[in-house]
């Protein structure tokens, strides 16, 4: 008992600290309404206090607690310290369901918002878990498929909204939840739903803590594992769905709160399930009251969900080195693919497909009657002058990303490594954001900042993972945290209505709209040079994955070679991100497909990846330009929408 009490001190302190901070911040919000002469008719400050500020703070507490509880349940039952409604795609699934229903079947929404959200999140959970089950619920693959699903749902919601409103005010993948309230209806309904589920959780604490004994131990004690897991997962999914239905997606609270609980001393299941909701409530309360205080008038329109990601992701980054990950991951053997085709055949097929995509992308378009037409006649040269730069830039950036992905996968020995997943693209976008808002340079300056951004991220990954020798989960988490942060920052900037934010949005979504001939030529030149350098380094890339000893004995300067190759991948990513944004997933798909096609050695893999990546990007650009002509969908979003399900199917095939 005394041990339990000692373990409780840390979490209690954290809760107290957050509550004090939040309380202090919210005091400034609440105080004006408490004093001053009351107007008997309609006292604005008092009305706003009673029916907007206070319900909002209550909602923050309740939503934070629900999300944290959901995250803690997921983490306990899946034995996965990274699981939470955001990383498993559950919140994003609920949100997509709400968007789809509100656009196509609005009457359903009136009937039951909660039910719609629940359906969406249940489907998302089912997809992610069924993928995870095939790989023995490895935390890594589970979270990866969850994140990919989140991204896909977020991208699809954005496109659907765009098609309906024809302009994309802002793009939030990881959270646009707003806690703004106009009555007590939402907090009160959330309260009793949360109370019901909390009682259920109390009932499962004991059996859940027996799970700590391991599978055979708990079976021996008579626990029906399958049923327990189902109940707990259902409870966690429901919690996340209810919050999403009430206030939208609020990212990372469910990941951060249990992590903080664990780090501050809560170790056993019971303790985690008890402290996580308290910490989550205090955390969101703190975040939201500080947001309201700092942002003032603007705060009403700033989604709290985006801000929690800004709060949460650096915290996660700071905690990473301390996070004890209990599960070793079976690293899938990367270089053992059966050869289906001879490398030359594969390259030939990829090359032919690329040429086909190029021809279609350049020649085919939509005309003024919305019909399809092949470019011809008096304006063909003008139209080609518009179209070719976009196609060329898409080709160059797709190829760059795919080659960068190949390099990263070889260096880290991690087949899921890619510029997008590692957050390097996010770093480049962050660099561009700083460039635009702080210095406003030309294209070359923007590229410089993008390179600085991506190389910084690479350095963080490099240093952070040095000791753990690039343990996939750590690298992956860094990437998640960084992309979430960039997404949130860009989202907040675009909510501010600054015109430069519109430009940044174009980058985020990967629109080729602004590309003209000089930019395309520049991009293409960079691609040629960098890919040639990568090809020259093929010997290093063949030998480095074999391990330090063989490399050293073959006379390769290990540290230098690694550093140079990482830097090369960083510059490639930065150059590509300038055109297609950080979301495209081509850097993951290209190398994968190349390997699937039997290209295992460095040079053929990179060449194949470049052809495939370039082709995918050209195809995505074509679809984005023509699908809803005369309107345009950003190519980066299209390729993410094609790429994400594709990736999940590939993960599913692998056993």
């Amino acid at each position, binding site marked *: 008992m005394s041990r339990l009490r000692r373990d409780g001190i840390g979490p209690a302190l954290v809760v107290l600290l957050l509550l004090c901070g939040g309380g202090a911040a919210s005091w400034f919000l609440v105080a004006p309404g408490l004093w001053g002469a009351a107007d008997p008719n309609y006292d604005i400050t008092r009305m*706003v206090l009673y029916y907007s500020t206070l319900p909002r703070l209550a909602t923050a507490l309740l939503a934070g607690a629900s999300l944290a509880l959901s995250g803690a349940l997921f983490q306990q039952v899946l034995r996965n310290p990274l699981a939470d409604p955001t990383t498993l795609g559950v919140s994003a699934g609920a949100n997509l369901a709400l968007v789809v229903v509100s656009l196509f079947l609005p009457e359903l929404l009136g009937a039951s918002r909660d039910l719609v959200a629940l359906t969406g999140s249940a489907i998302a959970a089912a997809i992610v878990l069924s993928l995870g089950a095939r790989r023995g619920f490895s935390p890594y693959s589970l979270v990866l498929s969850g994140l990919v699903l989140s991204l896909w749902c977020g991208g699809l919601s954005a496109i659907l909204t765009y098609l309906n409103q*024809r302009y994309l005010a802002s793009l939030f993948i990881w959270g646009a939840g707003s806690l703004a309230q106009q009555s007590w209806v939402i907090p009160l309904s959330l309260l009793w739903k949360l109370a019901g589920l909390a009682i259920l959780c109390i009932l499962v604490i004991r059996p859940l803590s027996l799970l700590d004994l391991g599978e055979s131990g708990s079976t021996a004690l008579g626990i029906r594992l399958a049923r327990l897991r189902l109940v707990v997962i259902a409870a966690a999914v429901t919690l996340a769905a209810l919050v999403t239905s009430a206030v939208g997606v609020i990212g990372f609270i469910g990941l951060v709160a249990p992590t903080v609980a664990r780090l501050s001393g809560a170790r056993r299941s019971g303790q985690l399930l008890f402290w996580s909701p308290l910490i989550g409530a205090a955390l969101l309360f703190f975040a939201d009251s500080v947001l309201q205080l700092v942002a003032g008038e603007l705060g009403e329109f700033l989604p709290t969900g985006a801000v929690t990601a800004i709060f949460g992701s650096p915290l996660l980054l700071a905690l990473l080195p301390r996070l004890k990950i209990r599960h070793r991951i079976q690293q899938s053997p990367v270089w053992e693919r059966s050869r289906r085709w001879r490398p030359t055949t594969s390259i030939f097929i990829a090359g032919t497909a690329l040429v086909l995509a190029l021809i279609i992308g350049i020649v085919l378009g939509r005309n003024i009657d919305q019909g399809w037409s092949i470019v011809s006649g008096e304006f063909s040269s003008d139209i080609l002058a*518009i179209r070719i730069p976009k196609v060329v830039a898409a080709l160059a950036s797709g190829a760059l990303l795919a080659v960068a992905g190949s390099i990263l996968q070889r260096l880290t020995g991690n087949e899921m490594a890619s510029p997008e997943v590692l957050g390097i693209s996010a770093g480049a976008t962050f660099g561009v954001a700083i460039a635009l808002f702080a210095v406003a340079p030309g294209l070359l300056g923007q590229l410089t900042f993008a390179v600085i951004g991506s190389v910084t991220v690479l350095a963080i990954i490099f240093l952070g993972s040095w000791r753990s020798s690039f343990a996939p989960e750590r690298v992956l988490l860094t990437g998640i945290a960084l992309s979430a942060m960039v997404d949130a920052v860009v989202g907040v900037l675009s909510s501010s209505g600054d015109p430069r934010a*519109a430009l940044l949005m174009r980058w985020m979504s990967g629109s080729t709209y602004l590309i003209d001939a000089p930019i395309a030529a520049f991009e293409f030149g960079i691609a040629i040079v960098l890919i040639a350098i990568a090809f020259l380094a093929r010997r290093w890339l063949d030998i480095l994955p074999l391990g330090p000893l063989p490399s050293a004995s073959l006379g390769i300067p290990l540290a230098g070679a690694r550093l140079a190759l990482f830097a090369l991948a960083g510059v490639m990513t930065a150059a590509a991100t300038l055109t297609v944004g950080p979301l495209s997933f081509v850097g993951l798909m290209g190398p994968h497909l190349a390997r699937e096609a039997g290209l295992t050695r460095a040079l053929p893999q990179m060449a194949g990846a470049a052809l495939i990546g370039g082709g995918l990007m050209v195809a995505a650009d074509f679809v984005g330009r023509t699908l809803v002509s005369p309107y345009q969908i950003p190519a980066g979003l299209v390729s993410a929408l094609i790429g994400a399900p594709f990736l999940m199917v590939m993960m599913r095939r692998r056993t």
Partner: protein
Amino acid sequence: MLVSRRSLLQHAIAAAVVPNPLYAQAAGLRIVSLDYGLASTLLSLGLPPVGISDLADWGRWVVEPAMPRSVVDVGSSFEVNFEILIALKPDIILTTPYLDELLPKLQSVTKVVRLEIFTPDSGPILPAAIKATRRLAAELGRQTEGEEFLARSDAFFNACRQRLAAKAVPPVALVNFMDARHARIYSSPGLFHNALERIGVRNAWTKGSNYWGFETIGIEDLSAITDPDARLIAFDPVPADVFPKLAQSPLWNRLAFARPAHLSVLPPALMFGMVNEAMRFAGLLTDLLDKQA
């Protein structure tokens, strides 16, 4: 004199769409407009555009005058589809300071006429729109049609004013709901505020606003309107969840506007428009107040 708004406006549109086909053909001007207000003004000058931006949303924000079926959508005004634009072979592209980012690219296609209506120093919008109409008419060699159109609009506003003159007309507050907590409220120097002045209706929201003519407020700020007779006029489209949520909210329910018959929802009318949009608004409002008074 009682003039039905509908008949008058229909007459105006009929006159606008086929005023003098021979002359239009002779002029043979192929015009693309990247602004709704300029596009509807073109119709009234008897020069229907060959293409406009955001045509797909015309029915959602502008509605009247109806665009002829022959008009082609050139995509969103922020991302004009240049492939379509070039294929339309425009002689003139009409644009506003709002789209200056695209100006160099547009100028490489053909002659661009840039008209300023909503700028920080343009002052009251309706007079600015009338000025811009005259400039546009001059630019296109359609001065006569321009003056005729402005005279028609003058007559229309006068007719509206007369219809309401004999009645006890309440002051009105004009809003577009953004969500259940926020609204844009329209006041001086905005287009609708000028139209209100023109037809002799008081704006219940007396505070001024930005140069576009709107201010974003919280629902609770509506309590600043103390006139017990004031009506709240909201324009479609109202987001689907707004009214159900407002019905549950004390912030709304304790406002004077929550009483029965103090809130009306009008069909869409574009407040970022020109003379036609002011006429549409004046007509809709006059019909409503005429019916209610």
